[in-house]
């Protein structure tokens, strides 16, 4: 099982995307 390892910080995600050459899949969610 490939559990999703979510980033929680936008800038970190962008830096990782640059490093890995991947786009970012960004989920805005609400706990309500």
């Amino acid at each position, binding site marked *: 099982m490939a559990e999703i390892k979510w980033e929680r910080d936008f800038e970190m995600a962008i830096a990782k*995307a640059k490093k890995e050459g991947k786009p970012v*899949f960004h989920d805005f969610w609400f706990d309500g």
Partner: protein
Amino acid sequence: MNAGPYSDEKVQKFIEEEYVPLKSQCFWKERTELMKQFDIAWTPTFLFQDFGGRVHRKLVGYIPVDDFLAQLKFGKGMVFFEKERHEEAAKRFRMVIEEHPNAGAAPEAIFFLGVAEYKKTHEASALRRAYDTLTEKYPQSEWARRAQPYSAIPK
């Protein structure tokens, strides 16, 4: 609320392999800076962003598993398409068409496959093929109507 598709192994695998996954929590009483930056007005909202942070697709609302997988593939295709990387875009659009023919993104993928192939080869017949495929397989879709100008292109 939006945990459904993420429990699917194919979704998990595709996101892990093809994207950097990012979650941002929303607060309606005091909107976060990211909510303001990306005009988030409802949840879930999904953004497909390149590594410069630019948004290439925005989806709002719950999406069932097959549609979600199709959108993941299509979204990556749109990132490539808008960066003029037509071969890589076309590959993702074909994945949607072949693997998710009943998904909502399938007609849009046919349309953009035609455009990506045209931009890569400069052969207008690619646009005509998109029109023919759309009118044959998805005649009621908006994308069939949007491809109508290509009906005048010779086969």
